[in-house]
């Protein structure tokens, strides 16, 4: 138990419990950007505007892929080597941002992507790209289960734990590891997405 309390003292955001600023679970400043991104997707679908759909798909996909690869394969290992107070300080800023960014870029990418596939004919079973497209659906489905069922709950639970007067450091460590490992898995799956998408556009 003593160990837990000691780790907690290091893992909590800096400052005595009463004086520590609360971490915003959902950074409200980010919501207008998220709403704008979703509005762009809805307008694209409603108007069947091919360029806007392609824009949403490419921007959302590029951000999603880059973030997953960067967090899973670059940032994760770096965070693992950081001191516990430094990691806690970083996580208190980074995790709330991810709560807004990830669902937004995923919705942009998938919502617009399906429409783009329909527009350019990849959904047609006779299209030579059809099998690759189904492959991308499967990879994205697997990533969605990992991201929504494991990664995001861990992300939000870390923020709530950090906001407690006396956070449980061992628990934060465990949840952060879950976050970083699952981000690594989705990062590797993103490589498969890159292969499929480049195949689709080069045929």
């Amino acid at each position, binding site marked *: 138990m003593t160990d837990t309390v000691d780790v907690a003292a290091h893992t909590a955001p800096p400052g005595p419990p009463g004086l520590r600023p609360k971490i915003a679970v959902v950074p409200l400043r980010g919501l207008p950007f998220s709403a704008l991104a979703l509005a762009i997707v809805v307008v694209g679908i409603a108007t069947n505007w091919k360029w806007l759909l392609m824009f949403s798909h490419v921007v959302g996909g590029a951000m999603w892929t880059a973030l997953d690869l960067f967090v899973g394969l670059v940032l994760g290992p770096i965070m693992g080597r950081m001191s516990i107070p430094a990691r806690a300080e970083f996580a208190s800023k980074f995790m709330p941002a991810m709560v807004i960014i990830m*669902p937004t870029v995923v919705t942009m990418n998938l919502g617009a992507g399906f429409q783009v596939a329909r527009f350019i004919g990849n959904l*047609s079973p006779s299209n030579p790209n059809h099998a690759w497209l189904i492959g991308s659906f499967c990879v994205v489905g697997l990533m969605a289960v990992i991201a929504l069922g494991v990664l995001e709950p861990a992300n939000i639970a870390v923020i709530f734990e950090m906001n407690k007067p006396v956070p449980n450091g061992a628990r934060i460590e465990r949840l952060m590891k879950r976050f970083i490992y699952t981000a690594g898995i989705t990062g590797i799956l993103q490589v498969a997405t890159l292969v499929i998408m480049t195949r689709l556009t080069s045929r």
Partner: protein
Amino acid sequence: MTTTPTSNEVDRPYPPIAWLTTSALGLIIIGGVLLASYAPRRAPLAVAVALLVAGAVCLITAWAMLSRLKVFSWPTFTKVFKWALLAYVIEAGVIEFAFVRDHTRGSSLLIVSLMLVIFATSVPSTIAFTVARYAEVTP
């Protein structure tokens, strides 16, 4: 030194609620991939319905287990569930809108809609349970 079951220092044991809600999500996503892979043709609805029912059973079982919990931070669960539900209802709404715009109609649209209902409730259930299981319980 002893710790109480409501203390923040212990992880209270709970039934596999998050596993069940995530399984519901997984089944629905498999169903969604199946329907999408057949679009614009008509997908084999029997398989889609079987996946939908299996997902619903997982989710209802999870909720039944949740409702029987004695030592649990219900205020935390409710607070997180409400906000997550709002976010995922919006997300499900965008997906539903895309299917409607793509002229999905009849039984296919009904199955997609029910799948989206499970999607929009299973993810908030997983998030809220994961947060509330570690929240301190006021005795």
